[in-house]
């Protein structure tokens, strides 16, 4: 980050950001407390942020805890991800009227009413996840204009992590904790004895224009050092790690490893890991008709590779066992994704670990497979 791009914004001026975004027609989506968790919803002021809250995360475990300060962003990622806005849980692809000859007359789509979103509080791992989803949805030979439209106007105000959770492993995946790009503005929150402020980096022209509307000052050496210390603190606290050395070939060599059988004993095949994953993009495409048979709609819904229907072909499911479904998910995330889309599908956010009802841990599973080879090598 260049020094000239560093600025400070005082806590008491933070709501100017909401004002500036509202004037530009943005609907702000950001973290807020609901049902004892920090979720992403539309918010209108800093009062709706999880002020003074943090989260405690472990495998299959998430709890909100009070902080001793009034930090706005003193927690890590929760059950929601920005996927909800990039690839909504259910989308109507089109609707049509039935003609007398069985033909379809597509009904004019309603004018596009989706808001222009500003994502406030996206973390480094999440920016990488958005980039990965963009490559999947927008990077191929066929792109749906609706997927493109959903991303076009999004403004991203990232928050640099000043702490890491027990389930975090972005350092291993090379996706954090500090965001280098993919934002319009990035904030680092600094809490000192008698001062609460943010160090801002501008990542785009739009971000620079927005900054111009806020009461800001150039960041001095002390403030830049404080931000940098916060970034270092997050890196040092990383709760988990996943050794990605040769990970693709490691998994390709181990498709018949007995570990898949073991994890299937615990796996509920409930699909939670895929639903909370910020990059899992699988959807089903299904037709819906009205009772009278006069109208048809085609809907796209979040689907999961843990369901039986997912791999259904004439004659049955390709992946009938939970063993094969877990293997599909994990090898897709860490290995086949690299062949399919040019990067890992995992950003190390840890959601699949925390939100698995039985606490299956992808880092532990990858380690077990790696260790099983080490044991194998030791054999004569």
């Amino acid at each position, binding site marked *: 980050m260049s020094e000239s791009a560093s600025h400070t914004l005082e806590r008491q001026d933070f709501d100017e950001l909401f004002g500036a975004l509202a004037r530009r027609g943005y*609907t702000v989506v950001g973290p807020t407390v609901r049902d004892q968790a920090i979720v992403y919803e539309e918010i209108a002021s800093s009062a709706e942020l999880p002020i003074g809250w943090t989260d405690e995360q472990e495998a299959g475990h998430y709890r909100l805890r009070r902080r001793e300060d009034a930090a706005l962003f003193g927690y890590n990622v929760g059950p929601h991800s920005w996927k*909800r*806005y990039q690839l*909504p*849980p259910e*989308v*109507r*692809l*089109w609707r049509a009227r*039935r*003609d007398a*000859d*069985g*033909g*379809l007359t597509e009904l004019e*789509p*309603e*004018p*596009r*009413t*989706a*808001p222009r979103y500003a994502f406030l509080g996206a973390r480094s791992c999440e920016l990488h996840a958005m980039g990965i989803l963009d490559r*999947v*949805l927008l990077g*191929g*030979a*066929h*792109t*749906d*204009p*609706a997927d493109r*439209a959903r991303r076009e106007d999004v403004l991203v105000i990232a928050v640099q992590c000043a702490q890491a959770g027990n389930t975090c492993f972005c350092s291993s995946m090379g996706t954090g904790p500090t965001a280098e790009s993919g934002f319009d503005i990035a904030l680092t929150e600094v809490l000192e004895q008698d001062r609460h402020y943010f160090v801002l980096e501008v990542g785009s022209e739009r971000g620079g224009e927005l900054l111009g509307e806020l009461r800001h000052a150039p960041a001095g050496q002390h403030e830049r050092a404080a931000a940098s210390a916060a970034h270092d603190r997050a890196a040092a606290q990383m709760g988990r790690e996943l050794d990605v050395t040769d990970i693709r070939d490691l998994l390709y060599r181990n*498709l*018949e490893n007995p570990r898949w059988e073991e994890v299937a004993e615990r796996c509920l095949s409930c699909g939670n890991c895929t639903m909370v994953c910020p990059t899992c*993009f*699988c*959807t*089903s*495409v299904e*037709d819906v008709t009205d009772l009278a048979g006069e109208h*048809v709609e*085609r809907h*796209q819904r979040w*689907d999961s*590779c843990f369901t039986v229907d*997912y*791999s259904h*072909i*004439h004659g049955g499911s*390709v*992946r*009938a*066992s939970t063993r*094969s479904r877990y293997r*599909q998910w994990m090898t*897709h995330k860490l*290995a*086949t994704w690299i*062949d*399919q889309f040019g990067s890992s599908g995992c950003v190390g956010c840890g959601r699949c670990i925390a939100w698995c009802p039985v606490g299956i841990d992808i880092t532990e599973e990858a380690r077990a497979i790696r260790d099983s080879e080490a044991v194998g090598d030791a054999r004569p």
Partner: protein
Amino acid sequence: MGAAAELTRPRPGPMVPASFTVTGKRQETADTWTLELEPRDGARLEFAPGQFTMLSAFGAGEVPISISGDPGGGPLVHTVRAVGLATAAICAAKPGEALGVRGPFGRPWPLEELEGADVLVVAGGIGLAPLRPAILALLAGQERYGRLRLLYGGRAPDQLLYTAELEEWSARGMEVAVTVDSAGPEWLGHVGVVPRLVHRARFDPDSAGALLCGPEVMMRFTVSALAQAGLTSERVRASMERNMQCGTAHCGHCQLGPTLVCRDGPVYAWSELERWLAVREL
């Protein structure tokens, strides 16, 4: 939830089907029909042999179906077996009625790579349907290829597709061998599985290429028979089936190892697949 309720889309995009009219229909077997389709907007659907479309009957769902027509011209042709509700509804469409078509999608048969070489086309059952455009293209440009040969197997004589055309292809210079798993006394042809025909076929194993489509088990045995005859799996191309729902590499359902069948297939070199097909439930 604002995001979940967002249901609008700019048009048209690859997810919106185009309306095609059924202009011709022929029953191939007890459960299989060949449909000829013409686009209502007049624009012919250009495709390469081996590609597929997503085909739908109104409100009955959508299925991936290989294109069976002539890449050189004419209507869009699909040969469809009624095995489920969506395919049954497609097969029930009458001339004059409409079907929805998206596509074409997928990687085609690499016919240009086979120029100068003998080409062996091996099909099992409905697997002849995706190969028909390749056969028509090979015959149309046969001066560019070596010996052209079709090995075709079905469960029984009444399960064979395009029976009238088989003779026509033979007359135009393709050697056609047909076998069935079982038949009554009126059947004078071969009885037995397709891979057995491989052993009788003459081709130059150092340069020949093979194009395969049929049940996975039939393709596995055919590949072994070809290997015994000296034709390596790099030169065997196969068309695969998985659960394709979008055709655009976005829905994830058709993954086969490190590939997406709708994007990286349906046609593969067998050498790309054998490692993955060897793993059960992959």
